[in-house]
C-alpha cells in the first residue's frame, strides 16, 4: 500500500510535508517523483507507474484527461503560485518592488524558461507589465525551471530574479531580499492535480487527493506561499 | 617417416607483383631462395592460408586446403610458420609464448626442453618480448613454431639474425625435423651455407615464379645456375656416403661420384650420407703427382672442356676415372704451363676440409 506521485519540482518541498502527514494518518507510503511537468507528461503517456500527477500548470493534466489517461472528475487546481522579485545581498531592493526597479542596477536577471516553465511564463508577463522587458532583454538569463534560477542566485551569477513565492519559505534558500509581485501582473499560475487512469480504482490515491484538499494540507500550502483556489 | 606431399598450383595478384607457382614438396628440407622481394615470404603465406586473395589449388596429402577458394582455413592447416619478423606475443613472457604453442600442439614435435636447450633460450624464460635482442626474439619464434608440432613447417629466414656459432648449433635440430616427425620443411634463406648444410632441395624464385626446383647437389653443380644463385664461384656438390672410418686419424673414406675421397673431421657413422662441396678454387692441377706422392685426394683427371672464367681465368672442366665431373679455375699463366687442351690427362689435388656434413637423412638416396 503505497502510491506514486509525480510532482512539479516547485511543489516538492510542501508535498513532502503533506506526504509525511498523510503517511502518519493513513499508513500509506507516498513515493514522490519530482521533475519537470513536460517530462512527467511524456512518461505518463508512455506508461509511467504514477497514480497522482501534481503538475505545474493546467494544460498538461487537461491533455491527459482529453487523451483518456486521467480521470476527468479528479481534475482540480491544488495550488496557485505567486511570484516574488528576489535581489541578492548588496543590491538595492526598491520599496515598490519590480515597479521601481532601475534596469541599470541589474547585472543579470534570471527567470525560468517561459517556453517550458509556467513560472517562467508568468515572470515574462510580469516583466512586460512592469515595462521592463525591453530594458532587460540583454541581461535576461533563462533557467530550466525556477529552482535553477535559485541556483543562479545562490552562486552569485545573477543579481535579480523572479522566482516562486514558495521559495521564500524554504530552508536552504539563498541569501537576499524579496518582494511579492502583485497577482494581477500575470496570468494566474494554476497548478492542477489529476488522478491517473491506472489508479482510478486505487483507494489510497483517492484518499491522498482528498487529503490535499483537507485543512492540514491547506495550512502547509499556505505556509509555503501558495494560494488555494476554492 | 613418410612425409605427406604438399602440392600447390597457386596464383596471387598484387599491384605490381604476381606470384604464380606450381609444384610439390619433396621429402626433407626445401630451401626457398631468391633475391629480396622475389616473393618468398608471399609464397609461404599463400601456403599457410594467410593470403585471402590467393587462388588455385593447395593440398597436403589427402587434405585439400585450397580449391580456388579456401577449403581449409589457415588455423586448420596445422602449418608452422616462423615469420620473418618474430611476431612474439607481446603480452606473454618467453615461457608464456612457448606454453601458448605447447597447449595447442596437435601432433608430435620436438620436446620443449630439447628446443629450449638447443636454441639457448633457457635464461630468457621470464623476459617479455620487448626485452629481447633481435636474435633472441628470432630464436624464441623458432622455438615456438617447433614445439607447436606442425604438419608442415615454413621457416622465413629463421637464422638471419644469429651469429655463426648459434646457427651451427641450431642447424642440426632443424635438419632432422623432416625425418624425425615425417613433415616437409620449406626454408627461406639468403645464406648459401645454410642451403648446403641443411636443404635437400632448392627452389629458386624470380619475380614471383619458380624458375628452379632441384636437388641441392644438382642445382649447385649446374654452371647455368651459378650466377642466379648469387654469383657462386664455379663448384660441384656431390652427395657421398661414408665407406670407412680411420679412428686413429679421425679420417673418413667417402664414396663420391668422383671417386673415394679421404676426409678428416668429426666422426660420422659408416653408411651415413654426406655432402661434399668442391669449388674450383679447391682444386690444384699438376702435370704429375710426383711431388704429391702419399698425399690424399690426388686423382688422375681428364680435361673435358675449357672456358674463359672470371677475369683472366680459365675454367677447366675435369673428369675423374670414376666419372665424376668437377671444375678448376686457373690463371692463364698456369693454364699455359699445364698445356691445357681437351682430353689431356692431369693430376688433380682436391683439398679436404671442403666437406660439409649433411645432417639429415637417408631418405635422400632412397629417393634419388
Amino acid at each position: 500500500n503505497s502510491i506514486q506521485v509525480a510532482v512539479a519540482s516547485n511543489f516538492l518541498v510542501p508535498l513532502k510535508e503533506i506526504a509525511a502527514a498523510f503517511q502518519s494518518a493513513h499508513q500509506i507510503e507516498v513515493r514522490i517523483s519530482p521533475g519537470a511537468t513536460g517530462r512527467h507528461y511524456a512518461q505518463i503517456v508512455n506508461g509511467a507507474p504514477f497514480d497522482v500527477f501534481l503538475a505545474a500548470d493546467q494544460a498538461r493534466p487537461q491533455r491527459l484527461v482529453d487523451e483518456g489517461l486521467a480521470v476527468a472528475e479528479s481534475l482540480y487546481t491544488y495550488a496557485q503560485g505567486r511570484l516574488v522579485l528576489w535581489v541578492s545581498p548588496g543590491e538595492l531592493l526598491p520599496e515598490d518592488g519590480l515597479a521601481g526597479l532601475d534596469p541599470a542596477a541589474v547585472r543579470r536577471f534570471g527567470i525560468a524558461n517561459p517556453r517550458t516553465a509556467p513560472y517562467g511564463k508568468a515572470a515574462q508577463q510580469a516583466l512586460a507589465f512592469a515595462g521592463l522587458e525591453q530594458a532587460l532583454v540583454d541581461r535576461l538569463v533563462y533557467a530550466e525551471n525556477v529552482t535553477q534560477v535559485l541556483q543562479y542566485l545562490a552562486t552569485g551569477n545573477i543579481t535579480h530574479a523572479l522566482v516562486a513565492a514558495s521559495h521564500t519559505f524554504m530552508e536552504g534558500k539563498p541569501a537576499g531580499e524579496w518582494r511579492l509581485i502583485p497577482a494581477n501582473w500575470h496570468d494566474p499560475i494554476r497548478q492542477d492535480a489529476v488522478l491517473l487512469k491506472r489508479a482510478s480504482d486505487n483507494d489510497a490515491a483517492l484518499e491522498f487527493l482528498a487529503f490535499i484538499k483537507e485543512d492540514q494540507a491547506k495550512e502547509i500550502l499556505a505556509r509555503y506561499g501558495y494560494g488555494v483556489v476554492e | 617417416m613418410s612425409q605427406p606431399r604438399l602440392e600447390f598450383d597457386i596464383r596471387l595478384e598484387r599491384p605490381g607483383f604476381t606470384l604464380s607457382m606450381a609444384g610439390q614438396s619433396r621429402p626433407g628440407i626445401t630451401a626457398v631462395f631468391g633475391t629480396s622481394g622475389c616473393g618468398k615470404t608471399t609464397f609461404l603465406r599463400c601456403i599457410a592460408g594467410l593470403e585471402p586473395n590467393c587462388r588455385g589449388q593447395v593440398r597436403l596429402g589427402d587434405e585439400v586446403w585450397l580449391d580456388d577458394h579456401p577449403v581449409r582455413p589457415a588455423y586448420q592447416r596445422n602449418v608452422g610458420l616462423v615469420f620473418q619478423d618474430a611476431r612474439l606475443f607481446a603480452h606473454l613472457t618467453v615461457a608464456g609464448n612457448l606454453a601458448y604453442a605447447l597447449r595447442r600442439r596437435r601432433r608430435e614435435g620436438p620436446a620443449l626442453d630439447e628446443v629450449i636447450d638447443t636454441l639457448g633460450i633457457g635464461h630468457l624464460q621470464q623476459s617479455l618480448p620487448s626485452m629481447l635482442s633481435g636474435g633472441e626474439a628470432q630464436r624464441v619464434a623458432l622455438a615456438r613454431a617447433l614445439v607447436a608440432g606442425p604438419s608442415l613447417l615454413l621457416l622465413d629466414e629463421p637464422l638471419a639474425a644469429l651469429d655463426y656459432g648459434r646457427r651451427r648449433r641450431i642447424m642440426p635440430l632443424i635438419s632432422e625435423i623432416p625425418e624425425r616427425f615425417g613433415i616437409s620443411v620449406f626454408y627461406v634463406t639468403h645464406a648459401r651455407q645454410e642451403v648446403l648444410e641443411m636443404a635437400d632441395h632448392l627452389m629458386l624464385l624470380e619475380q614471383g615464379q619458380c624458375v628452379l626446383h632441384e636437388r641441392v647437389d644438382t642445382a649447385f653443380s649446374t654452371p647455368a645456375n651459378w650466377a642466379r644463385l648469387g654469383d657462386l664461384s664455379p663448384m660441384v656438390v656431390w652427395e657421398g656416403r661414408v665407406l670407412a672410418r680411420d679412428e686413429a686419424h679421425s679420417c673418413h673414406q667417402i664414396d663420391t661420384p668422383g671417386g673415394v675421397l679421404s676426409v678428416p673431421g668429426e666422426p660420422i657413422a659408416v653408411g651415413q650420407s654426406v655432402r661434399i662441396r668442391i669449388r674450383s678454387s679447391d682444386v690444384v692441377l699438376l702435370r704429375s703427382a710426383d711431388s704429391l706422392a702419399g698425399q690424399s685426394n690426388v686423382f688422375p683427371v681428364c680435361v673435358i672442356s675449357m672456358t674463359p672464367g672470371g677475369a683472366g681465368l680459365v675454367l677447366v672442366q675435369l673428369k675423374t676415372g670414376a666419372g665424376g665431373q668437377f671444375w678448376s679455375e686457373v690463371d692463364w699463366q698456369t693454364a699455359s704451363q699445364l698445356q691445357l687442351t681437351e682430353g689431356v690427362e692431369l693430376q688433380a689435388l682436391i683439398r679436404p676440409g671442403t666437406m660439409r656434413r649433411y645432417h639429415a637423412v637417408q631418405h635422400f638416396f632412397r629417393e634419388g
Partner: protein
Amino acid sequence: MMSGPVWLSVQLAVVTVVVLLLIGTPLAWWLAISKSRWRSSVDALVALPLVLPPTVLGFYMLILLGPEGAVGGPWFDLTGNTLTFSFTGLVITSVLYSLPFVVQPLRDAFRSVGPGPMEAATMLGARPTDAFFTVACPLAARGFLTAIVLGFAHTLGEFGAVLMVGGSIPGETRVVAIAIYEHVEVLNYAAAHQLSAGLLIFSFIVLLLVYSVNRRGRGASIG
C-alpha cells in the same frame, strides 16, 4: 555503507559495462577488421546516440521501450511488465547511450593490434575465437581499460536519459545522479555537495586503483 541511490548507480554502471562489453567487443572487432562497405556507416551510427541530448534520447527510448513501443510492446506482451521505469530499461538506455565510449576505444585498440599477432596465433593452431580471446583481447587491454573507465564513469554520471526512462523510482531507478539533482531541486545544497563529493572520492579511488594496478602489471615498456 552505500546509500540506496549510490548502490543502485554502481549496480547500473556495472551491469551496463558488462552488457556494453558483451555487445561492444564483437562490434568493435568487426569494425576493426571488416572490409565491408557498410563499415563506415556502422562506424558513424555507433557515434550517433551521443549527438542527441540525453533527455531527447530518453524521450525516444521512452517511446521505443514503452508498452506500445517497438521493443517495449513485445516485451510487455511477453512478460507483463513494462521496460520503462524499470532497472532493465535503465540498462538498455545506458547501454545505448554509452555505446560509443566503449566501441570506439576498443575498435582503435583492435586496429592497433593489427593482423600480425592473430596470424601468428593461427599458425600455432589457435582457432579464431581462441586467438581472439587469448591474443587480440589481451593485446587490446589498454582499449578495454579505457572502454570500461569511460563506460563506467559515463553511466555513473548519466542523468537526463535515465531520468526520462526511469522516472526516479526509489530503489529501482533513482540513481545517485538523480538523487543529487533532487537535492539541488529542493535547495538542499549541503546534501548535494556531500553526495557529489562522495561520488567523486569513490570514483577517484576506484580509478586510481585501476590505473595503478594496470601500470604495475605491465612494466615500464608498455605503458
